[in-house]
């Protein structure tokens, strides 16, 4: 193998930001036709390294070699011209344009600088699709495509620009297991055709499945390179985090009691006035975690918003601990014992410019001991903040720094510390670990189980099917606004649930299925 000239070699890349060594003499090579996985926690230096490769950052030391020749990459357009292409985690597609228009967007190497040669473009796109095993209609509007197909459009965009080296940044984050398998097939085909792929992910089993080699970064350094055959998930996780990590949460049997949350015939409209939640019946019992699995955009957001008071349902009834709370405001829900970790923590969960202590009392600032009448008790707030910081191990220089300066994991811990404490009856967790590193995920999962064991009802909504499978005592599958099936968590079949998520159909009525209560 050593005699093959690598398609890409990064040698001794070092990048310092004030106070942080983001990349510390990182060396990485990518062989032609290889799928090379890059693993690491948030802040391990993956982004910095890829930004350097893409010409967005200039390394302080080290060199980049393409096909054995040292090069300087001056910026994204230079990188593209040299055959390096990035497929981003958040799709950079314009929904109202067609597949072809999206692919042509920003294409500056056209023969005719004024008019688009649509016919020729369509022909090339169709041909590329055929070659790599996914035929796509170039005239389809991107908004009409599923996420899995949008992912393919992103890849097609790179191929259209004649990329030889593809960097995929968490390409499977929003895909169902079936879609992931399909994308993997595409990637293997690309590799077989001689394309080289850098695959960034923190789903360990995926990396083991798709990669030819795995390089693990921790705190700006390469801490190990492994072949999939000679490693496993535990080994990789330990490399990433630097200590032993419990990947699967130890959770004992659940002992559910009576229902805490009862939802009957709930209907909710989305922002455009279309019905997003259709006649949902749901029970969450004390001492159990009910997970809702579903492809993003199947009504989960609207359901959560209706249950937490952020959105008014159009019909149906919501009962919390025996009390009718249908259409009540968030404050009333909070006082009835609901705690809520919102999916979009920057939009709902935190006030980023505010200090940590203010964020820790965001939902309780108005009641004793944090306020006496209309006057805030700064001392009580500070003291509670310091307690929460030590209890939940929030890494922050003090309770007075803006919460925006904390890392994502610690920001989420601020929300968890705020919402998990005190006397709660129902805990609604919406994407509680999105974008977090392994250590933070482990922490939050343990806390959720602890609340369950303490008798709280927990409703978990997550786009990560693995998270739902791992934590839930029961799993409700949501498809186009309806709960299409409920499965027992322990015995749930991942394939079947993936199918239900994607199509709303079960193959055959399963013996394990419970009636939707």
């Amino acid at each position, binding site marked *: 193998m050593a005699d093959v000239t690598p398609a890409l070699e990064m040698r001794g890349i070092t990048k310092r*930001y*004030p*106070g*942080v060594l*983001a990349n510390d003499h990182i060396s990485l090579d990518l062989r032609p036709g290889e799928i090379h996985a890059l693993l690491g*926690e*948030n*802040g*391990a*230096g*993956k*982004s*910095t390294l890829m*930004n350097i490769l893409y010409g967005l950052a200039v390394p302080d030391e080290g060199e980049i070699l393409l096909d054995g020749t040292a090069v300087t990459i001056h910026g994204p357009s230079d990188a593209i011209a040299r055959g390096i292409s990035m497929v981003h*985690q958040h799709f950079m597609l314009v929904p109202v344009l067609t597949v072809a228009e999206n692919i042509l967007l920003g294409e500056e190497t056209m023969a005719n600088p004024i008019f688009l040669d649509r016919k020729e473009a369509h022909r090339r796109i169709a041909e590329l699709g055929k070659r790599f095993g996914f035929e796509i209609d170039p005239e389809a509007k991107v908004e009409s495509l599923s996420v899995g197909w949008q992912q393919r459009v992103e890849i097609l965009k790179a191929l259209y620009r004649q990329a030889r080296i593809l960097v995929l940044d*968490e390409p499977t984050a929003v895909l169902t297991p079936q879609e992931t398998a399909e994308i993997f097939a595409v990637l293997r085909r690309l590799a077989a055709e001689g394309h080289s792929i850098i695959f*960034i992910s923190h789903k360990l089993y995926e990396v083991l499945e798709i990669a030819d080699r795995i390089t693990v970064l*921790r*705190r*700006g350094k390469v801490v190990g390179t492994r072949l999939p055959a000679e490693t496993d998930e535990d080994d990789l996780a330990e490399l990433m*985090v*630097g*200590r032993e990590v419990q990947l699967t949460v130890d959770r004992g049997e659940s002992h559910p009691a009576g229902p805490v949350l009862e939802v009957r015939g709930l209907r909710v409209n989305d922002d455009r006035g279309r019905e997003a939640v259709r006649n949902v019946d749901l029970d969450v019992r004390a001492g159990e975690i009910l997970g809702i699995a579903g492809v993003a955009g199947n009504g989960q957001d609207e359901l959560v918003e209706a249950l937490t008071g*952020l959105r008014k349902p159009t019909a149906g009834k919501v009962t919390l601990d025996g009390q009718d709370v249908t259409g009540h*405001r*968030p*404050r009333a829900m*909070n006082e009835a014992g609901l705690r*809520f970790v*919102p999916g979009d923590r920057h*939009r*709902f*969960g*935190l*006030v*980023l410019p*505010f200090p940590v202590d*203010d964020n820790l009392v*965001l*939902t309780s*600032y108005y009641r004793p001991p944090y*306020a006496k009448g*209309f*006057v*805030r008790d700064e001392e009580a707030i500070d003291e509670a903040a310091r307690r929460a910081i030590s209890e939940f191990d929030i*890494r*922050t*220089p003090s309770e007075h*720094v*803006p919460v925006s*300066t*904390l*890392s*994502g*994991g*610690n920001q989420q811990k601020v929300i968890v510390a705020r919402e998990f404490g005190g006397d709660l009856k129902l805990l609604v967790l919406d994407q509680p670990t999105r974008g977090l*590193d392994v*250590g*933070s995920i482990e*922490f939050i999962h343990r806390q959720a189980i602890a609340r369950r064991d303490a008798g709280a009802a927990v409703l978990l909504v997550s786009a990560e099917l693995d998270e739902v499978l791992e934590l839930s005592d029961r799993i409700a599958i949501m498809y186009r606004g309806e709960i299409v099936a409920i499965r027992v968590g322990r015995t749930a079949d991942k394939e079947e649930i993936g199918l239900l998520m994607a199509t709303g159909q079960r193959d055959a009525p399963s013996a394990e299925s419970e009636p939707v209560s």
Partner: protein
Amino acid sequence: MSASPDTSIEAPEPKARRRFSPRPAAAVPVLAVVLAFIVGSVLILVTSLATVGHIDLGLPLSAYLALLEGAGITTDPSAAVNGLVNTMVQAAPLVLGGLSVGVAFKAGLFNIGAQGQFLIGALASAGTGAAVASWPGPLAIAVAILAGCVAGAAWGFVPGALKALTGAHEVVTTIMLNTIAASVIGWLVTGPLLATGFSFDRTGDLGNATLPILFGTRNLHLGVLASVVAVPIVWFLLWRSTLGFEIRTTGANPSAARYAGMRPAFLIIFTMSLAGLLAGLAGSMEILGITHFMNASYGTSIGFDSITVALLGRAHPVGIVFAALLFGAMRAGAGLMQIKTGIPVEIVDVIQAIVLLFIAADVIVRRVFRIRSGGTGLAELQTVTKSYGEGAVR
């Protein structure tokens, strides 16, 4: 993955520490003023050909020194008292106006309507003051002030309610209300409130509703005290009360405010009413303390200057006091500057406008003085530039 180097969960947070090196929030405003005076001195030099006939390199310095002297920074005790009193009297309405705009900024609202709220408050106090002129002094004054506050608050309530209930942008509605306020003055002062026996259209004498002069014959009227009192009250409201926390949360992140169980609609209406009240109070004090009547073509720019004051003071009550004192001093000293050096008083307006320019285009200031952007980004400016497309706040 974020593009900036994050720290892992186990590491201490070097990033957090680095970013929190607390650069004084006043850096950009102070340097903007410095830069404005430098640009101002260039203007003085260039225009000195027309004003004094030749270019005199020492002219900017002597002009600024005269400005300071007029504002009370001088060794002559009587001139100093005179100048300082003048500075305070000029600064007082700017403090209230600055608080009006600043409070709105804290709620994420851009109150361009301080001008209209000021005018309507002034009109209400002039009309009411004339009507109760024969009442006992304290009562007459209280009623006249109250009328100004209520009128100003109403002029703030309307755009607040329109914003909260229909989503109408406050910038549009307050500008409209500024024009309406000027028109209402023209109508009322020439009609229902017109006093007889004067050679021009004006409201009647205030009589007992006139604010007393605090000491001697100087024009330090009782209204200056209102500004002094308002500052700690507004500070306490914003930073020590739960209501202020709700206002600031709504301003910083309206979605999080809703999540936290606050009522953004109520808070927007409340804050705009409070902003109107403060501006109306400023107008009331100007009428009851200084002009003592209102004429049909009453003109002022205090409402608009208040926007500059609020921006320069970073929407913080203490910062607003400093900003208002600066502008007050410039107004107090401009006359002496013109007498002594022949530089027209209007240079003060020019410098004030340049300050606003540098605050708005803070990138220039950061470049010139090599301040790294980041922590001190002016949140108020985002309020100025952003436009809600969200419609009504639920």
